[in-house]
């Protein structure tokens, strides 16, 4: 049953792939550490690199996954040292991380969060190794109708759990799906929404979309930030970098509990690090906050969300590798990257692409160890990245964006399109949308339509096929449950915990 893992280590341990895993870990940590950039932007900006190097599919996925996990490590630095979360997943880390830094414990906080991240990721990678093959066996039973229902479930759970505004999450997802319909319809050859522009015939290119949406809009947002609070907060001195064993042991249950919570939430399609860390933090606060010190620099309050968000990162690979449904915005980007290699995500991937899947999972183990080794002693060095002035950072992001897109297309139209999408992304963010649902919709949109149409051709147009099998009924019910659960839970909470403060 674990042949894929042995084969995977064979792939991941080649010098090239080891080097790429290291490069990914290093670049990911650096980019995640950049103030305000955070994991999802980090991977979006660095993604074209994987193509420009002309790597085979598994190597480029190893590099990208390294960047992903690396930026989750790096993302904690600006949270702890500057109180600036790089993205939604790092917000919880600031609650106790920054107070610790203010107390002069920045170094131990960085060390502890690195160890918690390592343990969280390890638990989740073990879980991934155990569960993914099992789920892949079930997944083979999925027909088009079940797939369609699964994607509805993914969108339902995403809108219920992601962000504070379910309505805007849904609207974002619909917009993403709509963008995926641009281009030649594969079934009939009809051109949809191309407005006679040949550049759009192949649809909106994934890389152009991602870079525009994240990198370009980020440039505009950074200008606002720079303008509004002219300088960033003073960086806390780091001090002793190593964390004491006793401090880790003090948090061991918090870390383990949060790792499991993170992994389980990571598996749920559409919900990522932000939900995982929030749930872990509130759970831990309930369990072990006896003296009301959470939020004032409690070590456990720092360890819990860090373990959870790294665990959820690895957990979100489970649905991505077994069902082809990304578990988070970032895995949606990875999935889109795989599609560029003509690898069809879906239940057959585990069977048809053992090299890619096994290599990726094995490299997660390796990368995780590399990250711990990089992050413990070098925390101080990475922290210096935080001091890169914005006026140098922003042109660098622009250069990476332009070169990335130009390298792939050698076409100025693609760059203009990227800029237009960037303005669109900026406006969405200003209207209070998060971009992950848009990406998820964009990546899943094509598959969703394809499966819907395949299902209906099988039944000759009878929509009842969509809810005929037990599996699909289960998925529809699950979708309905997740969609309405928060409403019910919110009411219950209001009833029983009138004094509960919203996180």
């Amino acid at each position, binding site marked *: 049953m674990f042949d894929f893992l042995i084969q995977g280590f064979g792939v991941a341990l080649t010098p090239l792939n080891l080097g790429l895993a290291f490069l990914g870990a290093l670049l990911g940590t650096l980019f995640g550490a950049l103030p305000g950039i955070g994991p999802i932007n980090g991977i979006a900006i660095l993604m074209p*690199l994987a193509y*420009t*190097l002309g790597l085979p599919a598994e190597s480029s996925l190893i590099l990208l996954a390294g960047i992903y996990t690396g930026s989750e490590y790096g993302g904690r630095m600006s949270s702890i040292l500057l109180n600036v979360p790089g993205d939604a997943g790092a917000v919880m880390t600031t609650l106790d991380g920054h107070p610790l830094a203010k107390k002069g414990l920045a170094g131990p906080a960085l060390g502890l969060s690195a160890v918690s991240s390592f343990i969280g990721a390890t638990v989740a990678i073990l879980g991934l190794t155990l569960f993914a093959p099992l789920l892949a066996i079930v997944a083979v039973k999925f027909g088009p109708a079940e797939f369609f229902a699964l994607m509805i479930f993914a969108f339902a759970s995403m809108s219920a759990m992601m962000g504070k*505004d379910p*309505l*805007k999450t*849904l*609207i974002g997802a*619909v*917009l993403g*799906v*709509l963008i995926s*319909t641009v281009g030649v*319809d594969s*079934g*009939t050859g*009809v051109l*949809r*929404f191309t407005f006679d522009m040949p550049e759009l015939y192949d649809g909106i290119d994934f890389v152009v979309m991602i870079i525009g949406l994240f990198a*370009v809009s980020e*440039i*505009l947002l*950074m*200008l*606002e930030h*720079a*303008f*509004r609070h*002219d300088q960033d907060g003073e960086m806390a001195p780091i001090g002793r970098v190593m964390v004491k064993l006793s401090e880790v042991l003090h948090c061991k249950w918090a870390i383990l509990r949060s790792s499991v919570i993170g992994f389980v939430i990571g598996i749920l399609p559409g919900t990522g690090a932000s939900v995982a860390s929030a749930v872990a933090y509130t759970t831990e606060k309930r369990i072990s906050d006896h003296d009301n010190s959470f939020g004032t620099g409690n070590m456990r309050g720092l360890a819990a969300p860090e373990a959870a968000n790294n665990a959820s990162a690895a957990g979100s690979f489970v649905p991505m590798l077994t069902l082809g449904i990304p578990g988070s915005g970032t895995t949606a980007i990875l999935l889109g990257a795989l599609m560029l290699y003509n690898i069809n995500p879906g239940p057959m991937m585990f069977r048809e692409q053992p090299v890619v899947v096994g290599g990726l999972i094995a490299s997660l183990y390796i990368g995780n160890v590399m990250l711990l080794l990089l992050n413990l002693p070098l925390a101080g060095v990475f922290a210096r990245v935080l001091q890169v*002035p*914005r*006026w*140098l950072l*922003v*042109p*660098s992001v*622009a*250069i990476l964006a*332009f*070169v990335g897109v*130009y*390298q792939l297309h050698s076409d*100025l139209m693609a*760059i*203009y399109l990227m*800029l237009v999408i*960037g*303005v669109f992304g900026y406006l969405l963010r*200003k*209207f*209070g949308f998060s971009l992950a649902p848009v990406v998820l919709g964009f990546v899943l949109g094509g598959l969703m*339509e394809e499966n*819907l*149409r*395949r299902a*209906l*051709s099988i039944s*000759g*147009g009878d929509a009842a096929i969509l809810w005929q099998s037990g599996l699909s009924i289960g998925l529809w019910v699950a979708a309905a449950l997740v969609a309405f659960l928060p409403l019910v839970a919110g009411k219950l909470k209001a009833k029983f915990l009138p004094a509960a403060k919203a996180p």
Partner: protein
Amino acid sequence: MNLAADRILSLLLLGLAAFIAVQAWHLDVPFSYDPVGPKAFPLILSALLAILAVVLFVRPGPSGQWPSGALLLRLLFTLVLLFVYAALFVDLGFLATTAIVSVAIAWLFGATPLKALIGGVLLAAGSYLLFTYALGISLPTGSWIEPLLGAN
């Protein structure tokens, strides 16, 4: 507090939904093997978008601060800069364009003119060397510089 932004957004989304529906409706489909065809999916989506937009109109949320005044001007200027970057990228070449744009952006983001000049030029040169020699990416040299280098 500022509910107007969401209301305006919902009207825009309604307009978008209508536009998509009309576009999809007028798609000329000569032949379709499957009973659904290419029209249905966008039509369903536009209906969904319209419903969500109406809900948004009825229950708008507060929106953040919108840029105005000097900040808006800076944003527009940055955007223009990026489009200029795109327009000159090939003809003027990576090195020159990147240097000019980097200096301008650095200055926009609050660097002193001297710092911006040094930083921007170094950034352009450094990234050019990195991309060309370390990563083997060929970047546009610029049509004006090629005659100077001799024909090849």
